[in-house]
């Protein structure tokens, strides 16, 4: 009866995935994932290589057909409304695919034609984008002559040429030096501040922590956990991590005190909300080689889940 509520175009969801699946013969690259991306947020997909992040992106971009489940972008089915959806997307894939036959400016101009943007309007948008991404000086340079960081920035600029309603960024800073990464992060943040909806994949946890409003951690095609970065840290790790040397004496001491710990390589980690008490208890009662206490990060959450997986 009340069709306005049922109509997803009117709700705030940009992407709705339910039981989404991608099978290659027997291999399930994406194995029944469900998530919901809301308007105006930065939504991250974290996971190791081969976790199914890029495959998920490709299904959202309507270039790789799903084999099961439901996937709607802007309230439209990705199988039946490819053209309409793609018109509203800005995509920066993992691998740079700038057109090497053209200059920086021409890349943007040729790309704008694919979206039927009138030439004069395109010129204005391109000037703005070159300025925003600090590429104005390189406008007439061929792609092969610009640096890796500039190529990445140009990829982002190109993704924005059609003023998309959703930005899809697959590993936006892969292979870049720290300065170039920070510049890209700044740009992504200001795109978010302008109200863009962004989905991004990454296997850099600091990147996800900085940029994402919400994220999922994927492994073997499944979503392990979903939430806001700080909430995930608090829920699964606690506020702090105390690290000590991994030796039998420390372990025995911790077991005596009935404390939960995780072994990560040559270290023992104790997840806690109360680092002072634990640190002093350990210092007093155990013989420690070294001990450090630090804030918990998303990396700890990730390793907790990834580590569990490995033990299975």
């Amino acid at each position, binding site marked *: 009866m009340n069709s306005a509520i049922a109509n997803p175009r009117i709700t705030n969801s940009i992407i709705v995935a339910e039981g989404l699946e991608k099978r*290659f013969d027997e291999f399930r690259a994406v194995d029944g994932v469900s998530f919901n991306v809301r308007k105006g947020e930065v939504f991250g997909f974290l996971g190791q290589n081969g976790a199914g992040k890029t495959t998920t992106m490709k299904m959202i*971009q309507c*270039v*790789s*057909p799903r084999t099961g489940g439901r996937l709607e972008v802007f309230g439209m089915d990705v199988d039946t409304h*490819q*053209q309409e959806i*793609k*018109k509203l*997307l800005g*995509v920066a*894939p993992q*691998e*740079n*695919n*700038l*057109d*090497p*036959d*053209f200059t920086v400016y*021409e890349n943007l101009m*040729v*790309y704008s*034609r*694919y*979206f*039927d943007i009138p030439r004069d309007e395109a010129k204005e948008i391109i000037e703005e984008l070159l300025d925003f991404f600090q590429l104005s000086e390189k406008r007439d340079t061929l792609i092969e002559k610009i640096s890796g960081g500039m190529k990445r920035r140009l990829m982002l600029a190109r993704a924005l040429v*059609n003023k998309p309603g959703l930005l899809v960024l697959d590993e936006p800073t892969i292979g870049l030096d720290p300065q170039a990464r920070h510049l890209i992060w700044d740009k992504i943040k200001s795109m978010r501040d302008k109200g863009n909806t962004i989905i991004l994949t990454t296997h850099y946890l600091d990147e996800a922590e900085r940029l994402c409003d919400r994220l999922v951690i994927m492994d073997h095609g499944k979503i392990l956990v979903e939430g806001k970065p700080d909430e995930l840290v608090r829920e699964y790790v606690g506020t702090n991590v105390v690290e000590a040397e991994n030796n039998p004496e420390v372990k025995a001491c911790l077991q005596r005190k009935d404390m939960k710990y995780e072994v990560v390589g040559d270290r023992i980690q104790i997840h806690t909300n109360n680092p002072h008490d634990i640190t002093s208890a350990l210092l007093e009662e155990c013989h420690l080689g070294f001990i450090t206490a630090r804030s918990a990060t998303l990396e700890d959450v990730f390793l907790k889940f990834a580590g569990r997986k490995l033990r299975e």
Partner: protein
Amino acid sequence: MAISIISYFKIPKLSYRVWKVWHRNMDVFMKTFKVNFIPPFLEPLLYLFALGFGLGTYIEGIEGISYPRFIAPALIAISIMNSSFFECTYGSYVRMYYQKTFDGIIATPLSIEEVITGEILWGATRSLINTTIMLVVIAFFGLIDLRYSLLVIPLSFLAGLLFASIGMCFTAISPNINSMNYPTFLFITPMFLLSGTFFPLSILPASAQYFAIAFLPLTHVVSITRALTLASPSWFMILNLVWIIIASLVLFVLSINLMKRRLIV
């Protein structure tokens, strides 16, 4: 089985956007147009001097036609074949595999069907451009009859579609760029020599003639081009034309479906 064969001949959905891919390739072409115009200018000169005026001095003439006049239309037909075939094999393969140009384009409202169609239209356009230049050069030597020869220009686009589609089929099934050598040496080179190009088909055994007419596309292109440049139209041209149109349509649809199979995973 029947269903799987039909799936290779699914009619693609296309829109005006195919011309955007064509436009992109045209822009790249125009950036280096001076270099691009050299081959179609030089090629007929070299062949005409070496074969037409060199070797040709020992040949009295074929069916009452001087040897340079006999091979001039064949040179045009060969150029039609080479321009679009190589554009849609090596050229398209580089754009598809090395430059990831197709990946970039299909992230926009264009579909893969439209990208491939744009590539094929561009391949045919290369044939048309090269043919036009060659016609001028060859006309300069007075080897063609201008009354009908201008019709070779639209023909070059049509036949260009045929060879572009053939090339695209090979591009779709080539595991790597080196394997493109097989169609070049096993298909293009024999056609170059045996399609009534440098000697008339009629001196071949009847079975070889039928084979050439049935399976070698260049035979039909040479046949029409020669009829036009010599201003001696015949009913056989209709057969040639029908063959070219049907083969173009079938192979065009096939190439798109093969490409979809390769690129959509």
